[in-house]
């Protein structure tokens, strides 16, 4: 499978995750979000950027519990809770946000 973004074809796996992390662009995130009928706001980007930084630092996509805690630490308690994150990413903050961020599916996610 593949998506079209920024005039490029970007490969994805059958679940919609990018096969090559380095092929990610902001445009790709927008296209992936549009497929889920989500328009990315600053709040979404904040989480996506956080995930990309986390992956860069630790080479894994965080489990949802770890993500929630870490977001709370970095962006404040009002954002580090599942209600806030599920409102932004209804299919699961780890699963769906990681997909938009071009990361693999978090380890341990089914």
């Amino acid at each position, binding site marked *: 499978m593949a998506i079209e973004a920024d005039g490029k074809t970007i490969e994805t796996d059958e679940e919609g995750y990018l096969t090559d992390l380095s092929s990610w662009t902001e445009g790709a995130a927008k296209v992936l979000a549009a497929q889920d009928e989500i328009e990315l706001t600053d709040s979404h980007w904040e989480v996506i950027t956080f995930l990309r930084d986390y992956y860069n630092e630790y080479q894994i996509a*965080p489990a949802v519990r*770890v993500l929630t805690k870490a977001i709370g630490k970095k962006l404040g308690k009002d954002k580090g809770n599942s209600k806030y994150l599920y409102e932004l990413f209804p299919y699961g903050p780890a699963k769906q946000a990681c997909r938009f961020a071009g990361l693999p599916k978090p*380890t*341990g996610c089914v």
Partner: protein
Amino acid sequence: MEDEVIKKFLYVNRKAPYGTIYALESLEVVLIGAAFDQDVSLAFIDDGVYQLKKNQQTSVSSGIGVKDFSKTYRALEGYDVEKLYVDKKSMEERGLSEDDFLVDVQVFDEAQMAELMEQQDVVLSF
């Protein structure tokens, strides 16, 4: 969830990274297992101590081109996996010291390590 029993899990790591899949597999099992809120410890014995060596460089452009999963050991704290133990003799006979490791560890002698093993409900060996 209230009657859930917390068990003590020890992961024993005895292989160097990259040469075999053991180190990475162990780490992935630790991360998956961390979701279950158990009491987790990691032991590094024999060549397993090399898994924690600082400054691993594996980049695609100038290296072996595989993921540098040593960085992931630093994420363990966020997963509430904070008990990492290194076998003193294995460390010393490889010319390493605590300063060579990329995470904080406790260095254990044989008696301490044997006691740690005995205290466990489950020992997983890699």
